[in-house]
């Protein structure tokens, strides 16, 4: 399975991802399962061939009856022959379905595995550009389209080709002119199917879009029901829902009109051919150009042609969608992480935990304004550093860079005195414990969540980390304690509980550098302060970088970085900053405007 990522080579260009690019992308998978495919397609060929035999047998029987040469034994022979052939068809049909459709599922599985393992290697800049919902659609909807094209599409294409050629050959053998005549409506059918199935696709997209609008409207109404009730807006919401519902009805009826044309039309065109056989074929029998048995067989072959003709339009559509979807998947597969370690990394430095940032500039791709500008600061190993600043001042971006989630241009970020770009990425990351602002917990037990970075952690270690983060008692209050499941099927955790579990997950690792990005915003100030003090004690010899929008808990930090508009405007201890930095002093005053009442001297 390790070979999956090397199995195919993604196309390097995004533009003009056409049919042949798609073929190149999936060729390795076709090669991997070539035996299965070969046998499957042979079985398909057998089905088609055997299906053509049945009308020949019927023709023989009818001709025998017409000529009066029939006997019961001959008829029983014919009937048994039909059964034998049908059994052959049944076995072959099962074989191709199992082999070829199974192949399409294997293709889907392998592509999904490939996509996922590639995604795991991509970095933050990529995920910034691609929303999670979009990637999920790739891994489900788009892959399903590829699977359909590679399974049913492939079969239908092969089947339609073999069937139509064989049926045509048999028909031409009976009477060439009659064959040509009956073929007249067929291209019309293929064309109509193609045009209409495109319109169906469009109509279907419109209906789906309207449906999701309706769903979203219902969802947002229910989610905000207390507000609508408080503002007396329920009647307006019912009107709005009615309006959307009517639009949905309209789009559905429109789609039905197209559906209602396509399917009867297919029957119509098929019957048109039958009409031609009836009219001209009947004449040929009368003038004794063909036998009555030929005539009956001809009608049977005609029935066989209707399906391949309809399939052509359908298959074209299927392939088109498959190729488009594969193109979208390819876009992810050609994405390369910007953040990669050097080929020959230097040995990890001895002074782990010492961080220096020199003249760091940083901007997100596609945004003109840099987020961080000319950042300079030094953190000594074992220091406790606070970071404060307004929303949007660049605190989180700085954390992401320090945690090695974003690439840094050379010579700006020094890790233990060495340019971080010279060091192995995994080695640097393995000495960092990072708690991002947005909490992500996984659907497993609380214990497993806390031990996420170290699955071998003992229960004592887990409980210690939880206790430091002030969540141990609350976990014990759950009926299942540490084995309580998190997520949809588990207990509903409050924002503050989730934040503290995420924090415990980082604490447990006991890494040299701990970065905490405003991860206690949902707990009250008293608790936040207590936790940060506990952390400071626990991490006495480790470098600790803590962002908070509240200044109070950071007061005792060894050093505080004050950020504004993407720059570090001041660095120092609380007292120093209060004395000489008016910006910092202003924030402090804003946050404690009432508290300074009569107590100014206490912390000045």
């Amino acid at each position, binding site marked *: 399975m390790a070979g999956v990522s090397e199995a195919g080579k993604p196309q390097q260009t995004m533009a003009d991802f056409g049919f042949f690019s798609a073929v190149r992308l999936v060729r390795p998978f076709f090669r991997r399962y070539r035996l299965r495919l070969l046998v499957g397609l042979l079985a398909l060929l057998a089905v088609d061939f055997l299906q053509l035999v049945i009308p020949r047998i019927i023709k023989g029987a009818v001709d*025998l009856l017409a000529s009066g040469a029939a006997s019961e034994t001959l008829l029983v022979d014919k009937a048994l022959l039909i059964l034998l052939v049908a059994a052959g068809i049944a076995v072959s049909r099962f074989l191709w379905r199992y082999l070829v459709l199974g192949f399409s599922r294997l293709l889907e599985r392998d592509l999904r595995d490939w996509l996922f393992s590639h995604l795991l290697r991509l970095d933050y800049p990529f995920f910034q550009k691609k929303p999670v919902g979009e990637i999920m659609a790739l891994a489900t909807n788009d892959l399903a389209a590829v699977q359909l094209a590679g399974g049913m599409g492939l079969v239908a294409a092969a089947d339609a080709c073999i069937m139509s050629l064989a049926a045509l050959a048999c028909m031409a053998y009976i009477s060439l002119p009659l064959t040509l005549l009956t073929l007249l409506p067929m291209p019309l059918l293929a064309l109509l199917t193609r045009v209409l199935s495109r319109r169906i696709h469009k109509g279907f997209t419109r209906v789906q879009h309207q449906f999701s609008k309706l769903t979203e409207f219902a969802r947002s109404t229910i989610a905000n029901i207390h507000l609508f009730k408080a503002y007396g807006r329920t009647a307006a919401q019912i009107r709005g829902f009615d309006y959307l519902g009517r639009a949905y009805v309209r789009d559905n009826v429109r789609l039905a009109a197209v559906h209602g044309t396509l399917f009867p039309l297919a029957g119509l065109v098929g019957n048109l051919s039958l009409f031609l056989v009836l009219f001209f074929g009947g004449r040929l029998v*009368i003038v004794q150009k063909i036998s009555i048995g030929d005539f009956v067989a001809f009608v049977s072959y005609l029935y066989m042609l209707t399906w391949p003709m309809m399939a052509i339009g359908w298959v074209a559509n299927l392939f088109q969608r498959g190729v488009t979807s594969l193109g979208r998947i390819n876009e992810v597969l050609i994405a390369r992480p910007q953040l990669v370690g050097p080929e020959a990394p230097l040995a990890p430095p001895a002074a782990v935990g010492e961080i220096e940032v020199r003249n760091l500039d940083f901007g997100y791709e596609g945004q003109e304004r840099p987020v961080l500008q000319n950042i300079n600061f030094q953190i000594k190993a074992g220091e406790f550093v606070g970071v404060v600043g307004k929303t949007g001042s660049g605190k989180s971006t700085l954390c992401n860079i320090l945690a090695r989630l974003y690439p840094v241009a050379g010579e700006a970020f020094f890790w233990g005195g060495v340019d971080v770009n010279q060091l192995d990425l995994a080695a640097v*990351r393995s000495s960092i414990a990072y708690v991002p602002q947005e909490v992500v917990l996984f659907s497993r037990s609380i214990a497993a969540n806390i031990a996420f970075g170290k699955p071998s952690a003992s229960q004592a270690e887990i409980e210690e980390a939880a206790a430091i983060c002030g969540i141990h008692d609350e976990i014990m209050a759950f009926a299942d304690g540490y084995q309580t499941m998190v997520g949809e099927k588990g207990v509903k955790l409050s924002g503050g509980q989730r934040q503290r579990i995420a924090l415990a997950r980082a604490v447990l690792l006991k890494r040299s550098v701990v970065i905490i990005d405003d991860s206690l915003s949902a707990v009250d100030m008293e608790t936040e302060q207590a936790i940060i003090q506990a952390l400071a004690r626990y991490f006495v010899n480790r470098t600790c970088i803590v962002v908070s929008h509240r200044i109070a808990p950071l007061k005792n930090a060894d050093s505080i970085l004050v950020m504004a508009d993407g720059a570090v405007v001041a660095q120092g201890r609380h007292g120093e900053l209060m004395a000489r930095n008016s910006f910092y002093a202003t924030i402090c005053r804003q946050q404690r405007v009432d508290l300074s009442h009569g107590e100014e001297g206490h912390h000045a």
Partner: protein
Amino acid sequence: MRNDYGYFEEDQLGRVGDARLWRRIILLGLPEWPGIVLAVLLSFLVVGCGLALPYLLRLVIDDFVVNTALGQAERLAGIARLAGLFLLVMAAGFIVNFCQVLVLAWTGQKIMHRMRQMLFNHLLGLNMRFFNNNPGGKLVTRLTNDIQNMNEMFTSVIVTLFNDFINLTGILAVLFWMNWRLALLMAALVPLVVGNTIWFSRLSREAFRAIRTHLARINAFLQESLAGIAIIQLFLREPETEASFKKLDHEYYEKSLYQIKIFGMFMPLIELLGAVAIGAIIWYGGVQIMAGAMTIGVLVAFLSYMRLFFQPLKELSQKYAIVQSALASAERIFELQDSRALLPAAANPQRPAHCRGRIEFARVGFGYAPGQPVLKDFSLTIEPGEILAIVGATGSGKSTVINLLERFYDPDQGRVLLDGVDLRDLDPEWLRSQIGLVMQDVFVLSGTIRENILLDSHLDDAGLQAILARAQLQDFVARLPEGLDTKVGEGGRDLSAGERQLLAFARLLVRDCRVLILDEATSSVDAESEMYIEQATRASLAGRTSIIIAHRLSTVRRADRILVMEKGEIIEQGSHAQLVAAHGQYYRLLESGNGS
């Protein structure tokens, strides 16, 4: 892909034999009876046209093609005549088929639309306790996916099932009429096909359910991993994550393979039965022809009818599955429809002409869940124009006071009074129009800023400008290129947390309510917005009875009275100065906020 908003429902099967359920479904469709009757009538025409074609084929062969008794010219003319008829029937078939599809879609959609509106209407009238107990995703699923499921049944199944039924009986009738012995032989195959179908539909349902469950698992895993990609990478968990995903993916593959096997067996089996039928026709029919009891034309027609006969039987299993799933949906929808979680309405709801704004909680007891009281013997009086601040930890009962005052819930014991009238005797709509609520999460409608401020009220531009000024929105609106007509909300401009707060104040000022409830935001807003919000708060509080769930100390200080709550009880009250002097819980709260 089904959009479940995080709500995943195990598949259930409806009870096809439940008469009560069917009665309700039929009642729902009753108002659309003209459409349904028309669709059924069209069914007869569709089936008639479909059956006529092979019969015409038979006539062509027997009467003219093999009929050597007639002269050649006569035979050719006869063929031409029948071929013309064939063309005519064919065109008619196309037209009635198209009409039927349209009538069905229109009727089905109208029924669904009516159901959806009925359900939505019912839902919005339910009380907050109901919404707290039912996840939003579940209710959305009822309104959308469940109703969609029923639509499938109305449009594609019920009438096509009817079509098929007429078709099968029609074919059997024609076969019996042509040759009853051979027809009897054919009819003997029907139980075999139906038995096979039922067996198969049972297996395939299980297979599909397993596939859906596994796909949902893959989705959930993907969503979680992608959201937590930074954690996975930083904690170096890529190998384990990849292995878990591959395992899930492979399980999904195995489930889908199982489904392929089942389908791969069913279709060939049905076709094998078809071959048995053909063999039987040739053998038995051939013997009859030799005996002169049957014509070749009848034999050919029999062969054609067999094809028509097997088609609907093959699809039967699919349709049965749709009906089952639709019935399960219907059951869930009706269950929601039957929920009677309504606030008890007064016999004569009062709508006083004037509201002074005196609020009284008289010995109120209340809990969201039985046995877990949130408020115990809670009494409180707020005089008109008084500003009251409530402080306390999460879970102390602050928000419950507001929920009771808005009458989202009724108290379990005691009474809540406005101007001396029990809230239960007041018209809830009037009550809510008297209470202005500014919450942490401000709902923004997708529309213009003007629409968002006015909601349902009317106000001229001058009045609106005055309100903008008081709500501190003037500068903000002035900076927008389209001013008050700027679109906000979904598809429009995004509003910051601070701007949303100001918008809520503007709404409140437009409606000029006598009672103001302010649930302050805890989220950090920047200093500039903070200043604006403070001024807007001051403008809004003036002259109104106000209750503030306080987080910002500046607003607490302005209050006439401060209530400190803990575990559903008032433990301290008084002015800021009094409480500071008392050195109690309030003082400790201030201290910790200070960080000293």
